[in-house]
């Protein structure tokens, strides 16, 4: 149980091991719900919540669970939390629940969650596991919101439309619009738009990483990272 630096955990979750952009996990909900920024945010928060709860639980029971039944136990833990979150959203965020619909139960199939349970929480103490879950969840949420915002802006010419679904009537004026005349590019809203947007985001991240590593350590040999395929060729 080596000591872990929280700064490093947060950096990994948000950027260098971002579950959506680097690990490429949880693509099903990622690609499907991100046609607006708010949908992305809603699913991102739900995923983060599940991730934090499952990481915490898995970390607490890590010495109790025998290796043979480790994975079934993780699946039970995750599925129970997802169902609880789904029921709660249905009760308290009904409008948003109607929009996200099927994708909330699908959080169960988000490999990022069982991935973190297996790779991190089952080997670390409670606090680092909580931080890891939170950082990974926030990283995933950022990717969802960015992709959703991008597709919404290009496809419909608005940003943060329907924010009132999540934040109440207070937020009904938050919607930014490019104006009535902007008809939008339909492709961005349709499923191919999700793949193209995702590819562009990964490409952008790799370009930034490449620049950063060049600037930071010109003396060292170029790192192996940043060789990820964009997948949209």
């Amino acid at each position, binding site marked *: 149980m080596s000591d872990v630096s929280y700064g490093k955990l947060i950096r990994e979750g948000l950027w260098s091991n971002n579950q959506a952009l680097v690990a490429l996990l949880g693509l099903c909900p990622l690609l499907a719900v991100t*046609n607006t920024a708010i949908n992305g945010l809603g699913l991102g928060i739900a995923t983060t919540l599940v991730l934090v709860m499952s990481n915490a639980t898995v970390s607490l*029971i890590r010495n*109790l*669970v*025998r290796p*043979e*039944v480790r994975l*079934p*136990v993780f699946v*039970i*833990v995750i*599925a*129970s*939390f997802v*169902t*609880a979150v789904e*029921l*709660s959203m*249905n*009760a*308290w965020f*009904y409008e948003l629940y*109607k929009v996200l619909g099927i994708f909330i139960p699908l959080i169960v199939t988000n490999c990022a969650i069982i991935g973190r349970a297996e790779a991190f929480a089952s080997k670390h103490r409670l606090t680092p596991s909580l931080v890891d879950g939170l950082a990974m969840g926030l990283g995933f949420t950022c990717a969802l919101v960015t992709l959703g915002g991008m597709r919404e802006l290009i*496809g*419909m010419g608005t940003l943060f439309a329907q924010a009132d679904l999540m934040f109440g009537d207070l937020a009904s004026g938050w919607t930014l619009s490019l104006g009535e005349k902007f008809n*939008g590019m*339909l492709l961005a*809203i*349709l499923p191919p738009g999700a793949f193209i947007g995702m590819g562009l985001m990964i490409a952008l991240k790799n370009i930034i990483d490449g620049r950063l590593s060049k600037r930071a350590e010109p003396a060292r040999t170029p790192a192996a990272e940043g060789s990820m395929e964009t997948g949209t060729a």
Partner: protein
Amino acid sequence: MIKHPVSVAGILLALFATAGTALVAVTNDLTAERIAENERQALLSNLSALVPIEEIDNDIVSDTLIVRQPDLLGGEETLVYLGRKQGKPVAAVFTSVVPNGYSGPIKLLVAVHNDGTLGGVRVISHKETPGLGDKIEENRSDWIHSFDGKSLSNPKFSRWKVKKDGGDFDQFTGATITPRAIVAAVKNTLIYFDKHRETLFPNTRKAEQK
């Protein structure tokens, strides 16, 4: 100490399954009432947009009837919400289905006043193309309001089509199939209502005939 690791593992798994089920059961218990209330409120707000609440005095959400007429109403069984005031029929709201949408069935709420005029139409769920066919949604365009107040004689029966087919209803640029299908489904619902007006309100039949 552990002689049978498999049984220990099995017991552990069973314990976790029990705990997980308990968590779900408790959450379900805590939220069930609220969820049912949410669904009821959502339905009620949909219905009251079509049949204003002050025009009726019954509980329209639970005063329902199931009718079977797939050729006119789309679904095998169609739920009809009945609005009454002092026992007299005011309006019927049909949960009609448009069978021939561009990409799958479209679910509608069609409110028909007792005199045969439309209280309004709303799309409950659909899978039409975003940006084209989805202008049937109320929050995307006003098109769905073009049915308000219409009846089988207004416009004339033969004009119950989209403009492209020589009728009175607008189609959308790039999407004719969706509006055409909805216009036909609303028309069919009106035809059904016209034929079965007498039998739709079972409890008030006698009162109405007097």
